[in-house]
């Protein structure tokens, strides 16, 4: 019964409610092309949350309840489309906030328009480090004083640390670093090399191999890694090429683990790699396993509402879902749909926000150009290693399942506490 009203309201939300007494939130991302599994999952996760909020009457803004109205834009993972969309959104006078963007390049091209007008945006789920560090202090120029861009994703810094840590824990000493030639791949390689140094140089990088978007034959790169004696391949890239790497490894009989960024959980990696993808490890913030009642409700709700048996990118979907609840909590606390007031509320959320990944306790603090983590919600604690198994992503370590379950049930430590250590 409740579900039915929920879907009804989803449809209503999709149709767009009458203007006026609504909270306008824009959802952006690539809904077509190679990054689409992440873009559509994030959008649909957000829509699920918005449907629930609207079904309960909307957000309490001051004296009245207001429903959320969705503005949806497909950036096709193209930087120039992203810039156009950002300009359009920045010109809307009554926009409360933006949630979305998958591609780091799109963030770099578009977010400056939103930041200029002070429009609140929660980046979800683009993970590349550069999309937040572009606002921070740099050796040659100071960062922005006031920042309306927040992020809700485990950024590459965390992910690279986990990838290196996993390789060390598995007692490997020689690894090959493989990456694609985009901004995302190259900065991922830098993050990984950086982490290898930070974690005590326990890994020897015996090969550094690059590939291009669209490459299908990775034999040369992999043979070099094989003949150098690599015990694991640490990789940064996007779905289709990652699958070509897995298939190439099977062909030349290179039976070592593939460990890399969260893109290894994209459906177009899992499907194209088939059984060659089994055992691949990647950091995840959400695993499609009903470990808590809330996770079960979320997974079932997603499957039913969007008629799928598997979420194309569970991480993106769960982050999209929680990001909406965090934005809604900020609107409620601000008592206003004004984007600048919402930004201030986001920087100081008084009440914990229960989400499907965790209960978010003051996820953001006042922007400090010397410390990007003030606008980053995720910490190492909310991230686990996932593993591909027979077409799905499962927990890499059983201990993590318990840890994530606990963190989802109890509140995350408040930001101030987390920062001390």
């Amino acid at each position, binding site marked *: 019964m409740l579900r039915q009203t929920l879907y009804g309201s989803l449809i209503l939300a999709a149709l767009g409610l009458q203007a006026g007494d609504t909270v306008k939130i824009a959802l952006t991302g690539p809904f077509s092309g190679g990054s689409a599994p992440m873009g559509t999952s994030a959008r649909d996760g957000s829509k699920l949350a918005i449907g629930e909020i609207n079904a309960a009457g909307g957000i309490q803004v001051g004296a009245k309840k207001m429903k959320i109205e969705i503005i949806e834009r497909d950036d096709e993972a193209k930087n120039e489309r992203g810039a156009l969309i950002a300009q359009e959104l920045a010109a809307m006078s009554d926009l409360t906030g933006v949630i979305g963007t998958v591609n780091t390049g799109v963030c770099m091209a578009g977010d400056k328009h939103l930041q200029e007008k002070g429009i609140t945006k929660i980046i979800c789920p683009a993970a590349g480090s550069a999309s937040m560090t572009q606002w921070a202090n740099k050796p040659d120029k100071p960062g922005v004083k006031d920042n309306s861009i927040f992020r809700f994703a485990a950024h590459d810094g965390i992910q690279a640390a986990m990838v290196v840590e996993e390789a060390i824990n598995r007692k490997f000493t020689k690894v090959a670093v493989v990456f694609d030639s985009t901004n995302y791949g190259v900065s991922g390689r830098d993050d990984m090399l950086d982490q290898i140094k930070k974690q005590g140089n326990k890994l020897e990088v015996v090969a550094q191999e690059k590939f291009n978007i669209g490459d299908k*034959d990775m*034999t*040369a790169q992999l*043979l070099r890694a094989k003949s150098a004696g690599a015990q694991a391949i640490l990789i940064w890239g996007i779905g289709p090429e990652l699958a070509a790497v897995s298939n190439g490894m099977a*062909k*030349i009989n290179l039976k070592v683990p593939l460990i890399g960024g969260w893109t290894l959980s994209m459906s177009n990696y899992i499907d*194209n790699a088939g059984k*060659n993808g089994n055992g691949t490890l990647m950091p995840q913030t959400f695993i499609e396993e009903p470990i808590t009642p809330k996770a079960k409700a979320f997974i079932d709700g997603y499957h039913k509402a969007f008629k799928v048996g598997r979420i194309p990118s569970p991480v993106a979907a769960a982050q999209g879902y929680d990001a909406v609840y965090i934005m809604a909590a900020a609107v409620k606390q601000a008592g206003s749909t004004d984007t600048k007031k919402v930004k201030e509320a986001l920087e100081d959320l008084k009440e914990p926000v229960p989400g499907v990944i965790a209960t978010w306790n003051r996820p953001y603090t006042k922007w400090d150009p010397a410390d990007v983590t003030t606008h980053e919600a995720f910490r190492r604690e909310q991230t686990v290693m996932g593993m591909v198994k027979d077409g799905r992503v499962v927990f890499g370590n059983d201990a993590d399942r318990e840890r994530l379950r606990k963190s989802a049930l109890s509140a995350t430590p408040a930001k101030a506490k987390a920062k001390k250590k």
Partner: protein
Amino acid sequence: MNASIIGQMAVSGALMGLVYALIAYGFQLTYATSKSINFGQGELVMVSAFFSLTLTNLGFSYWFMVPGGLLFGALLGLVVERAGVRLALEQKSEGWILLTIIIGLFFFSAAENIWGRDDRPFPTPISADPIHFLGVDVTRLELAVAVGVLGIMGLIELFKRRTLLGKAFEAVSADRDAAELMGISATRTVMLSYGLSGAVAALAGILVSPITTVGPTMASAIILKAFSVAVVAGLDSGFGVVLIGMFLGALESLSSYYLGSGWREAPGLILLILALAVRPTGVFGKAIIRKV
């Protein structure tokens, strides 16, 4: 260790090179009869692969899907001939160059709209597990490519030599005007060559997709190399494209191993320039003296 790496790179490169050879052979078929080439051949490869994937997804077995895909490719070849080539040839113009490119672009847009822009896996009953053979790992899929390519080329060559229709094909290739005077319809023969060329493109798509996945841009890289192979080998030697195709494939993968993957295409392009400078008719091409 080193020798086995050279062997591995050469063998897997040469097997991929056979796909270039097959597509190059498709160029030769139409060039022989009409002195024209379908510049949208890559899109035929791609659209036929998508069509075959759809047949598979509808539940048809692999052995039904293959002839179905070939037939579809042949039909597309006929469409290209009717829409892009015939009128231009009748008017003795070079309009077919632009027209075949445009038809290719049209197929590309159609594929994007019908099947979407994503790369998809192509199911096949042939296992992708490697077989260890003389220190080299080869997958059954790659062997299937070799068998399929050599098989269809052998069949078409047999057809050209042993059947009446095939002999008409050869006659038109040798001298179109003389063949017409003998009562052979050159138009029909050109249609036949485009149909065969389309079927060959479809087979290339079906053979290569399990290895590379299916997507709208799947053929854009392959087609350039196929074109190089056709030019280097000469536009009238079936035997030549197989040799040059395997050679170019092996050269590519060896150079991506020794020079780095960014240099993969370079030796092939140098080879192309050299061939055009030294032997414009192709390594295996015959210099034809046209009497005026």
